[in-house]
Structures are given as structure tokens and as C-alpha cells.
């Protein structure tokens, strides 16, 4: 559990003076997550996007630690190279063996759900020791609010327009966190900027693990969601309370819901947002119903994963098998137990 007084005393990793919009969810996410590193040095990467362009306008940078931006789809691949260098240079004796650095790769939902998914999957499979954070604002916001694989059903964006023929986005969003969890990495979780304690606790946990870890963080974009600039945290909270964005973690393949939430109807999350305005026109009730059905179905899916995890643990115990992290395998790529050829 994070203590807000202690957190307030930690070094700021992202300096003010950047040009992100007022009330931007992404910067809140970055600042909270990097608190999870405590006082250990952090090296970050970011995919091309708002976070990168607004924090590194040459010759200024807001990043207090090392930072690299490469291309849109390559935050995970780039960070895997950085992390590989850390190990290679240690092995060569060019970096002290006891030096500690936390590595954190950031990407938006466009750079993670869509164009960067392959690079992320490869990095997870290879077992690199870094935390990947997707700050999910549900569209390509940097290029002007275009739909992504994370854009919610029926939402308006500039490439899921609302007109007489089409009522916004026609597809449900991709379940990225489950996709990541299917890599059987030590830790994957879903969090929100509205629940700071849960978020920082998860970030700390993820960074303390030796191996690939993942956070999918709800980080509203007031511009794209069409809410007032002071409402990013509030709307994220409603996302959690309506189960649009359930908070959970998958630790060693064991699924767990991490917050007791008030269950509110999905309208409470949709109504304040201009991108869903058309849903509330008479005759469009079915769209809200479909949205609610999908939210409820996904929550039932998560509950089933939680219940199934108990059965999974029992099965492991019965067979005398360890949880994936407990045998130390596949966590630090490149390290192998002594063996005979």
C-alpha cells in the first residue's frame, strides 16, 4: 500500500513545463507510476505520441532520468535493447554488477493495442526485465482523435464518425490486458489514474519483479472524450465504478480483482462525455444496452478468471508444480541454470 505522505516526498521524475494539455490523464499516470520506483534511478522510453512530443521539445526535456523515443511502434523493442545493453555491459564488466536501474516503457493505446502490439509481444516473450505501461485514452489523440483498437463501442472519433448511416465505432475494444496475460509473464494489471493508491501499489509491485511486467492504465483525454479539462480523474473514477474499466491484476497467472467498487449503470460513465452524446438521443437506447451488455459480459469473464484461478492453484498444488515465478525460470532472459550438454 502506498502512503500519500511518503509519496509526496519522492523525487519528481517528470518536470513541469511540458506542453501536455491541462488535465491530461497521461501525465498523471506517468508521475504516479514513476513514484513506484522509489529512489532507484529510472530509464524510460515512449512511443511516438502526445507524451513524447510534449515532453521533449528540443532543446528541453521534462524527463529527469534517461529517456528515449524511437518510433511509434517500437517503445517495447527499443526498451528491450536498452535492457539488453544493461545486461551485456554488466557481463562485460563495463557497468558495476550491483548497479540498479528500473526500466519503464510507455505507449499510448495506439502504440500498444495496434501498431506496437507485435513489438510488445516479442519483448514479453523474450523475458526482458522492464515494466511496459499502456496509457489508454481510447483513441489516437495526438493525431486528432482517430479510433484505435481501444476505442469503446459506439464512441465518436474522427474516423468513427456519427451520421445517419453509422452510429460511431462499430466494434468492441480489444482485450489487451488478457492478451498480455496470455504471455504468462509474472505480472500484468489494469489500473486507473483515479485510484492512485491502487496504481502506485501495482507500479511498485511490477517494478520490483525481475522480468517483464505490464500495466494498462485508464488515462482519459479530456479533448478526445469531450469532457471539461478538470474532469479527467472524475471520469476515470466513473469508468472504474461502472465496471467499464475493472481494476485487477494477474500475478503468476492468478487473477484477482483489486478494488471493491460501487456498481453504477454504464450511463453514468457515458453521459458526461461528448463522444457518447448521440447515444442519448431518443431511439438509440439499444446502443447503451449493447454497451452495458458488453461491460457486464466482460466483468463476468473476469470473475470467471478469478474463480478459475482458485482451481488453477489447487491443480498446481495437487500436481506439486510451482507458480510461474517461484521456480525462477524465464524471468531474467539470458540466465540459465548450470547444465550438461
Amino acid at each position, binding site marked *: 500500500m502506498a502512503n500519500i505522505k511518503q509519496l509526496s516526498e519522492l523525487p519528481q521524475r517528470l518536470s513541469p513545463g511540458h506542453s501536455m494539455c491541462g488535465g491530461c490523464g497521461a501525465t498523471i499516470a506517468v508521475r504516479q507510476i514513476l513514484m513506484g520506483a522509489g529512489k532507484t534511478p529510472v530509464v524510460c522510453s515512449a512511443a511516438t505520441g502526445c507524451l513524447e512530443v510534449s515532453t521533449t521539445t528540443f532543446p528541453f526535456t521534462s524527463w*529527469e532520468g534517461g529517456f*528515449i523515443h524511437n518510433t511509434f511502434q517500437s517503445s517495447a*523493442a*527499443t526498451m528491450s535493447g536498452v535492457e*539488453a*545493453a544493461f545486461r*551485456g555491459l554488466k557481463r562485460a564488466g563495463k557497468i558495476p554488477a550491483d548497479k540498479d536501474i528500473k526500466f519503464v516503457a510507455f505507449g499510448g493505446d495506439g502504440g500498444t493495442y495496434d501498431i506496437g502490439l*507485435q*513489438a510488445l509481444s516479442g519483448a514479453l516473450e523474450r523475458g526482458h526485465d522492464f515494466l511496459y505501461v499502456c496509457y489508454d485514452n481510447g483513441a489516437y489523440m495526438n493525431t486528432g482523435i482517430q479510433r484505435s483498437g481501444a476505442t469503446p463501442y459506439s464512441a465518436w472519433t474522427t474516423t468513427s464518425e456519427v451520421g445517419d448511416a453509422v452510429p460511431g465505432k462499430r466494434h468492441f475494444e480489444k482485450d489487451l490486458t488478457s492478451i498480455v496475460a496470455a504471455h504468462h509473464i509474472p505480472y500484468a494489471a489494469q489500473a486507473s489514474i483515479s485510484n492512485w493508491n491502487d496504481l502506485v501499489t501495482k507500479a511498485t509491485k511490477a517494478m520490483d519483479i525481475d522480468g517483464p511486467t505490464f500495466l494498462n492504465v485508464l488515462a482519459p483525454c479530456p479533448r478526445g472524450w469531450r469532457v471539461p479539462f478538470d474532469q479527467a480523474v472524475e471520469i476515470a473514477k466513473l469508468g472504474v465504478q461502472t465496471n467499464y474499466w475493472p481494476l485487477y491484476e494477474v500475478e503468476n497467472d492468478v487473477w484477482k480483482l483489486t478494488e471493491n467498487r460501487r456498481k453504477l449503470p454504464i450511463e453514468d460513465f457515458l453521459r458526461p462525455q461528448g463522444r457518447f452524446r448521440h447515444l442519448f438521443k431518443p431511439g438509440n437506447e439499444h446502443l447503451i444496452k449493447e454497451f452495458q451488455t458488453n461491460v457486464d459480459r466482460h466483468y463476468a469473464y473476469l470473475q470467471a478468471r478469478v474463480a478459475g484461478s482458485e482451481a488453477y492453484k489447487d491443480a498446481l498444488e495437487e500436481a506439486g508444480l510451482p507458480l510461474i515465478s517461484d521456480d525462477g525460470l524465464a524471468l531474467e532472459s539470458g540466465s540459465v541454470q548450470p547444465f550438461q550438454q
Partner: protein
Amino acid sequence: MPDVTVLASSGDQMVAEAFRQANPDVLPVYPITPQTIIVEEFDKFVAQGKVHTEFVPVESEHSAMAAAIGASAAGARTVTATASQGLAYMWEELYVAAGMRLPIVMANANRALSAPINIHGDHSDIMGCRDTGWIMYFAENAQEAYDDTLMAFRVAEHPDVMLPVATTLDGFITSHALERCELLDDETVAAFVGEYKPERSLLDTDNPNSFGMFANLGNFYMETKLAMRKAMEGSLDIIKSVGKEFEAVSGRPFEVVKTYGTEDAERVIVVMGSSIGNVRHVAKQLRAKGEKVGVVGLRVFRPFPSNELVAALKDAKAIAVMDRCETVGGQGGPLWQETAAALQSVGITTPTRDYMYGLGGADVTVQLIEEIFEDLKTLEADKAAGKVADVTYKGNR
């Protein structure tokens, strides 16, 4: 004197040996024909504990270059290898590597690009990257592929250069065929290549740096490009001096532009890569018959060695350029364009003609080269008659 091991080796295997001897800190790589032998051989060195390299078997060439960029920015000596579609796939990353001034060394087994799919040697892939800011060597044979790769570290990591270097070898002809090669001993190579000491590193947590920033305002973008141009132009002298140093170590001569018979040649062929030897062979035979022919082979294409090329061509009466890369719709292939521009820039109006040959590994025969030398006899008359020197295909059905 260094200990030299003489062996029968493919070009790919020699590149893998050069990588082993340079002992890189990180090698991210993805397999693609005809580069695969490099990956396979190097991974054996990793498995045998002969290198300290962190081998990163990535899921694509895009990620190979992305990881190389991350590793190099982190201060690691970083190498990779690719070919063809793989090089095309990492294209946007090539600009990033050069723009960030990262001294990555990459071997490319030059190969045709789809469609139609073809795995054999030509220069379509590497020529697609000629403006990315990478220094480019073209090996004539397996020995040069090894030598170029060792020299590449010295050039890339030179503080006045700090640009990535591609050492290229022609697919299959050089990458796979076995040739007599000489391998220097590890100590000699280690002393020659030296250790990479980065000026800036992502892992220097006491002096943090931001890499890959947003240069959108003012004219910072243009400034970085000008700085790259100057570094690239200046690199030619460093390529030459490193080449001379290597010459002293290996006993093998190094010239950025290799000439044969140009002291009195009237008809000259300009060519790169594995075909240099073929053309030289034909030229030898023709000169034995008293024909005044010559050969100019480029070992370095970026930076383009204009002055050296002009010096080699200034007395020729007719010049053929052999291009192994189509520029469909362009006035000629990349080597012809650069050659014509270099001659023009000093007011030389010798007639030239571009010959497209060997695309997708099409055979480069003695007859084909003889035809080109023969063609050159009429080039001046054609020009006087106002005939445009069109791109001429050789060796097609």
C-alpha cells in the same frame, strides 16, 4: 606479425567471425535469407561462451533495429545483420539510428526485393537505404566482407563520425560461396578494433540524457541534417586512414575506389560489389589483346567518393556504369546517377551509359561484360548523333 588462419569460408561466416572478434555488447537480429548464416554462426559463439554479447532474437527486423537503437543509445557496442525485405522493413528505423548518431554496425547480404519474390543477389534492398545517413561499404568478396566489418567499428565509433555503418556483401555470390579467406588472430583484431567508449549513455544515471527528441520548432531539424552531412563527408578521410591502418595490419591494400587499367583506358566500366572481379577478369583478357579498357570498382558508396571516382575516370573516352538496382522511371540506376553527377560537377562531358544487369541474381557472364565493352565503342558516335544514352538491359531473356 599477426597469426593468420587460412580457411575456406563463405562471406556470411567471415562476417560472423568479425562480429565475434569485435565482441559486441548487444546483437539483436532476425533471420532472413541470405543473411542467416551470420545469425546462426554468431549464435553458436554465444552458446559456446566465446563472446559476452547479449543476443536478442527479436520478432522482426523492425524490432531488430529498434532494439539496436536502444542498445546503442545505452552505450553498448551494437551490431546486427539483415537482407532484402528485412532491410526494407527496418527502413524507418535506419533514419532514426543515423539521426541519433548511433555507431551501429550492420551487415547486409544484398538481395532483390519482392515482387516477384526472389532470394538472390542484387542491390535493390541496400540502394533503397542510400539516403538514410548510413555509411556503406560494398565487399567484392568474402575477404573484403570480413575486412570491411572490422574497419566499420573504427569508422562508426570515431568521435568525428558517429554514424551507423552498413557493410554489404552480395547475396549468395559472396554470402554463401566458399572462398579462400584469411582470418586474423583475435588479439590482433581486438587491438585494431579497440573498445567503444560512448560519450553519452542512457545508462549514465548521474548524467541523464534524452534521446530521440522532438525538433519541430526553429531550424533544429535542418541543423541536425547539416551536422550529419558534414560528419558523413568527413568520414571519407577516416575511412581511408582506418583502411591504411588495416592495410598495415593485414597486408591487404585498401582503396575506396579500386582501379584497373585506368591509366591508359579509353573504355571504362564502373561497377560495385561481387561483379568487380568478373569485370576485371574480362578487362584483363581484352587488354591482353591490346584493347584499352579499364575497371573502376567502388568499395565505399556512402559517402560517395566523387573526387576519387572522377580522378579514375577523367581520361576515359566512354564510360559504362553497371547498376544492379532498378529505379523504375528514373533516368538511370543509383550508381549511374551518382557517377554522372560527379563527372558533370567538374565539367567532364565524357559519354556515359547505364547498364542494368544481374537483377534478382541473373547471371553475370563473360559475354555480357564483353558486350558492354564493345557497346562503348559506339557510345561517342551515338552521342554525336543525338541518341540519348538510355538505360540498357543486359543479360535478360
